[in-house]
């Protein structure tokens, strides 16, 4: 099975994240790390490969220096990587990113594309749906479990009442969510880290993927950041003094906030 995982390098959530003052795009000069949900996507891809054979290709779109995410995915066990990098892509919004990635995916070829359901930087959560639409294949979003049987693919999507089982035929696009412990992404072993050094990373530009420059970048973006301000510092919170009626007061507070 030909599995492609899309991974994104994002600014470390542990550090202060900023927008650039010149064009309001995300400042990517800070420490880059692999987006957490992308690690789950890599893990799911590796599990599929372990069960059904085939190859896992990592696809990332990001500036030249955004290689930490690729390295991590390769060290976890992916076989090879394609790095789509081009000045012209800077400032692309979700719509143009989905276009650029879909062009790259057409070039790479795939049975299944797996990606995290959102990234910790832009958090649009729309890429999987857009990609599926552009590629003309089914989308199975917010998967907590993926199963493949021949050309049939099914996922579990967690709901309030249990889970939905969503089925489709390959090729397809799957987006995955965070999962609890035994399904957490593996850490790269030291041997995996060393092996990753020898795995091929193919760098491609806009022309290689036959991407129309008019449909990408800041100029082509459908969404614009018109203004932004820093979030106000968190307020002090409400202190309830327990004078025998603490429980009632706490409950009243929760009711006033529509929690109960």
């Amino acid at each position: 099975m030909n599995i492609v995982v899309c991974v994104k390098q994002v600014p470390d959530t542990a550090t202060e994240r900023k927008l650039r003052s010149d064009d309001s795009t995300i400042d990517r000069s800070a420490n880059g790390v692999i987006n957490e949900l992308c690690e789950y996507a890599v893990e799911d891809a590796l599990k599929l490969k372990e069960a059904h054979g085939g190859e896992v290709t990592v696809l990332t779109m990001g500036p030249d220096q955004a290689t930490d995410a690729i390295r991590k995915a390769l060290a976890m066990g992916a076989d090879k990587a394609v790095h789509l990098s081009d000045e012209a892509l800077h400032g692309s919004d979700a719509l143009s990113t989905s276009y650029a990635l879909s062009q790259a995916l057409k070039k790479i070829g795939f049975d299944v594309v797996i990606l995290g359901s959102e990234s910790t930087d832009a958090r649009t959560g729309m890429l999987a749906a857009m990609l599926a639409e552009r590629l003309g294949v089914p989308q199975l979003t917010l998967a907590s479990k993926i199963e493949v049987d021949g050309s049939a693919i099914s996922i579990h999507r967690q709901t309030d009442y249990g889970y939905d089982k969503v089925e489709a035929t390959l090729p397809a696009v799957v987006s995955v969510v965070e999962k609890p412990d035994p399904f957490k992404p593996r850490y790269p072993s030291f041997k995996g880290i060393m092996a990753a050094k020898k795995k091929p990373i193919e760098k491609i530009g806009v022309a290689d993927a036959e991407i129309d420059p008019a449909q990408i970048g800041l100029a082509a973006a459908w969404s614009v950041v018109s203004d932004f301000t820093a979030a106000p510092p968190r307020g002090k919170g409400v202190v309830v003094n327990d004078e025998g009626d603490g429980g009632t007061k706490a409950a009243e507070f929760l009711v006033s906030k529509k929690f109960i």
Partner: protein
Amino acid sequence: MDLLNLDDRLTEDQRLVRDTAQGFVRDHVLPDVATWFEEGTFPARELGPVLGSLGMLGMHLSGYGCAGLDATSYGVACRELEAGDSGLRSFVSVQGSLAMFPIWKYGSAELKEEWLPALAAGTAIGCFGLTEPDHGSDPANMKTFAKQDPSGDWILNGSKMWITNGSVADVAVVWAQTDGGIRGFVVPTSSPGFSAPLIHRKLSLRASVTSSLYFDDVRVPASSVLDVVGLKGPLSCLSEARFGILWGVVGAGRACFEAALEYAKTRVQFGKPIAGFQLTQEKLAWMAVALGQAGLTALHLGALKDAGVLRPQQVSFGKLANVRAALDVAREARSVLGANGVTLEYPVIRHMNNLESVLTYEGTQEIHTLVLGEALTGVAAYR
């Protein structure tokens, strides 16, 4: 909280090594280590295979299932493991640098095949016997003796003390006098006449197995002797392990500093967080400086080792300076936590007590001071 951003100097791969070691400690060590310390146990059999599957055993060696990391990566991994506990790092140091390294460097092809893959996988455990009850800093005068009989077998007699992993080991690398100088022997712990009782009542490195080794006519084949003669054999192993220590203690110190910083920001006295008092800030600033300097020393020595030019006295410099710094940081951090600083609810006193062992083993502070004294003056002052 690293004011110098030292980790920006690491490569992508070295950062991955760091993250894997950190993840392992977070998931497999921190939840239980206070209990291990309190009970005086270390789950070597359970953790061994996990450490092995991640490539942490003999990580800086090549072949035989070893990962083949560069020296700086090895250091970074030790730093993160020791941020968990010095006992954990000791387990990994002893296995990789003191048991696997001599077999890898001085062992016959058969010895390597027999032991290295299993030790790398963590399905077998190794220990290193140099120190004796009456000979610690002065191992040249050791009493354990190996005599070759006419069949070619070697017969070992004597005892070792303070041997990490001794009671849980499958194989011991034992250094003994022979008629031709000090030699190393690879001794299966199942050999008749070998015993390794646990040393009890330690108040330091409690999450680590420490044992005595007794050899009562232990017979090993001629093929188990290592191809090195004299003290340079064990000293070359110690140099590898000490390199891991001078990185490791930076992790232990950092864990103490982080605990103190967090505590200072949340503990309120006289109506404000104690972090707001100048005396506390002086402690925190000083700890950050000490750790930054120790981290720089480690990075520099890592670069020298990767360039293949690291000298033993430079390792002594690092061990002396960094263990001292980490222990001072731990004590300062302990004071910031007040009464909470003396309980196992916080990691600080555990690290502080551990570091007392780290100060002593692998060459005491005094011995490393004399190494530097000799390097500076050309005069050896050991005796």
